[in-house]
């Protein structure tokens, strides 16, 4: 069993402890937070045997194999570097790093220390994300022409409330503020289909009324972007107001197109008219209904096998990361894709600053 430690005992740390235990490949032996009370609460609620408020001491005393870094991103470079220097592999919460330059330092440290790193880009491991990988590998869609993605954000939810009620929340200090904290999830779905040369166009603005607090009001809540990389384009909407809160991707291929809904855990091929005239327009809804029905029964099967947890995708990602750590398997998220996400975020943030 891997000996695993967690640094950063905020709300996402619960998910790490639960999913590490569900995967069953490692044991959470210690947690750490510079605020001792926060380390205490996670250790008490989750029955973790050791807790620290000094990361160096945890590394020194606990002989960890893997460190999960769940702190705000400003600390990721320092903590990941310390962990790898101490002989640990590192699984890092998103955002991977505040800037691409800092992300490069983490990747370079991993190369230098021959340690494995990964990041919690979990949506590609949702059932529709995995199915998309299979379809692309089988050439079912042909070449990718365009990707269109939507990501909704609920400002009244657990995470949104924390940001909206606290002007000192670390999200407000990120260059791209709210979007900086979610773009990893948005762009991680796209980068496998893009190259390292790209152009970016952006619209970002605040749609909600002013609260009177300058820091909170400086946070935009609506983002649109268009990326072109060679012959592939990608567009996206990140919205705090559109309902229902979306988690979707449409992949337009030269042979066929598919629509993924990560929240509903469905993937269907796009409707197309195969018969002529008005009669031909009669059948697509029936065909689509049958496709959705197949998704439903697949999900029922997953549920019956206890493979339908809300964070099932994270379990699969962690399992593959631990394969890389223990058996030298390929990185579940290639470092070049992590860096591409970070560079794209830098560019989008740059463009955001230019918008009025």
């Amino acid at each position, binding site marked *: 069993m891997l000996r695993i430690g967690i640094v950063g005992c905020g*709300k996402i740390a619960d998910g790490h402890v639960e999913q590490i235990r*569900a995967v069953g490949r490692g044991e959470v032996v210690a947690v750490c937070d510079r*605020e001792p009370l*926060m380390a205490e*609460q996670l250790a008490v*609620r989750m029955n973790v045997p050791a807790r620290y408020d000094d990361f160096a001491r945890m590394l020194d005393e606990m002989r960890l194999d893997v460190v999960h870094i769940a702190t705000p991103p400003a600390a990721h470079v320092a903590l990941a570097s310390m962990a790898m220097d101490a002989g640990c592999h590192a699984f890092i919460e998103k955002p991977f790093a505040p800037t691409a330059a800092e992300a490069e330092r983490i990747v370079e440290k991993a190369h230098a220390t021959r340690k494995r790193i990964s990041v919690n880009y979990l949506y590609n491991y949702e059932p529709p994300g995995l199915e998309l990988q299979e379809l692309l590998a089988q050439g079912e869609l042909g070449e990718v022409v365009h990707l269109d993605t939507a990501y909704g954000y609920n400002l009244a939810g*657990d995470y949104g409330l924390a940001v909206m009620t606290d002007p*000192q929340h670390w999200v407000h200090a990120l260059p791209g503020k709210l979007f900086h904290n979610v773009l990893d999830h948005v762009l991680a779905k796209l980068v496998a289909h893009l190259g390292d040369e790209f152009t970016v166009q952006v619209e970002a603005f605040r749609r909600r009324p002013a609260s009177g607090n300058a820091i*909170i009001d400086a946070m935009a809540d609506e983002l649109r972007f268009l990326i072109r990389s060679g012959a592939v384009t990608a567009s996206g909407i990140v919205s705090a107001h559109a309902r229902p809160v979306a988690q979707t991707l449409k992949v337009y291929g030269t042979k066929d197109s598919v629509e993924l809904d990560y929240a509903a855990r469905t993937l269907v091929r796009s409707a197309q008219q195969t018969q002529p005239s008005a009669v031909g327009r009669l059948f697509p809804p029936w065909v689509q209904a049958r496709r959705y029905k197949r998704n439903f029964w697949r999900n029922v099967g997953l549920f019956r096998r206890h493979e339908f*947890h809300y964070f099932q995708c994270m379990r699969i990602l962690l399992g593959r990361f631990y394969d890389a750590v223990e058996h030298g398997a390929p990185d579940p998220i290639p470092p070049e894709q992590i860096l591409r996400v970070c560079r794209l975020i830098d560019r989008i943030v740059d463009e955001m600053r230019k918008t009025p």
Partner: protein
Amino acid sequence: MKVLVTGAAGFLGTRISERLLAAGEHDLRLHFRSAPSARIAEWSARYPAARIETIGANLLSRGSLDPLVAGVDCIIHAAAGMRGSAADMFANTVVGTRNLLEAAGEAGVRRIVLISSFAVYRTIDLPDGALHDESVPIEPVGAEKGSYAYAKTRQEQIFEEYRQRFGFEAVILRPGAIYGPGTAPFSTRVGVQVAGFFFSLGGRATLPLSYVENCADAIVEAALRAPAGGVYNVVDDDLPSCRDYLRAFRREVRPMRVVPVPYWALLAGSRLLASYHRRSKGQLPAVFPPYVVKSMYRPLRYSNEALKRLGWRQRVPTAEALALSFSHWREHAS
């Protein structure tokens, strides 16, 4: 006496501030996190002699709270995390309290009144029909009762640690289910709404209600008159059963499709769900674990005698408080 109210822009904090002014306490410092109460201009007009300061502060910002507590004689600490994740609730309740007490202790604040909760009590050992007064012990940890109970229990422990360290006069109030226009109508003690049905869980158990105006009266009474070390439950008189409350709500506010769940069925369902939660590695959350069901859904009797000995009297009778609340919820049904 200069009184600081933390969380003064909140549902309860606003009423506490108002009652302090009505009680003749005219030197107030009102703390807010995001924005001050919208009613301050109205209070300033009604109490022209009053000195009402507002001060924004993040209680999580350790070491920056000296201006908040400087020159204060008494703190009524009503700020707490009521929503969000377990970690956020803990941070906003416990870490914030530690930071405030640290600053208050260093500044020599003489008296601190903590607004705690019924959630801290260890009621699992009480027999059905037992009297639930201040002599019931509090949970040693509280984590088994959920994240809110854990945070409030740890908050009381921190409060006691800092009382011993700095020697301030400590008073604790533990309100039951605070309600009134502006709250959600249903405590989980009554039941939960799922898929268009209301599952009635409380049955004949008494609902320990505290109307927000009466609760604020009790807090102000205790802040001004309670002896150091005083602990007070805050509940109203003439408490309805959960079933009667639900019946009145359906009659006065809106009809609902209600599924009554007897205690034995709730406990059996709770055990079943806890077992499935373990087997499925958390595929469904273990809401209402057996410990919570046994702690919260059995019939107990509630006492406010300690408060009455202090001089508190229920200003808004329960029938009137319920009528006011029902009327508000009816008008805001959408």
